[in-house]
């Protein structure tokens, strides 16, 4: 069962660096403790989302590979 999130964003139609940008905006608008799930087909997201999460000091909850895309769950930690 995938981890449920406060908000789910489908960025599968979005080209690099779109998914990361959408995630950053969603985290900015979220409350501390919220989780955001983002779906991305961009292979760059695999390195960029965890790197941003670490740099911005949030929490990478889960990365799962689905059919042709990945789902990233991030918790807003501050």
């Amino acid at each position, binding site marked *: 069962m995938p981890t449920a999130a406060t908000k789910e964003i489908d960025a599968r139609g979005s*080209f*690099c*660096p779109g998914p990361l*940008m959408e995630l950053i905006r969603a985290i900015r608008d979220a409350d501390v403790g919220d989780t955001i799930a983002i779906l991305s087909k961009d292979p760059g997201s695999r390195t960029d989302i965890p790197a941003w999460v670490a740099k911005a000091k949030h929490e990478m909850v889960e990365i799962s590979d689905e059919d042709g895309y990945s789902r990233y769950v991030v918790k807003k930690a501050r």
Partner: protein
Amino acid sequence: MAEKMSFIVFSGSADKLQAAATMVSGAAAMGVETHLFLTFWGLNAFRKDMVGQPLPMSSEAGDMAEMMGKLMMEKGVPPWSSVLADAIDIGDVHVHACAMTMDLMDMPKEALVDVVEDVIGVGRFIELSAGGSVVFI
């Protein structure tokens, strides 16, 4: 990681502006102070009447120019100007116009899109970029 990155945007070709805007986005996302210094053809692409106009590919594209343009359309690559607008929205990004090019092309500040913060001389750019990495594109 560099805490500051500066991009000298000399080229006004579609592919190089795309690359520049994408790298600026990465820098902005990673919390790096980012400066763009628009000069020559790079500055020309920031004219109000140029944004949204189709731009040529760089000479490096050669025979692949047409195919690359098609691929960018097909894959829904967002226009460089919107990639840059997103970067400005999420990060610490500053866009400066080269005073010399403005003078050379008789271009008033009003002719440029609003993302351009100010018109500066190269000396000021050197001062702003000091201590960080500099990319020429």
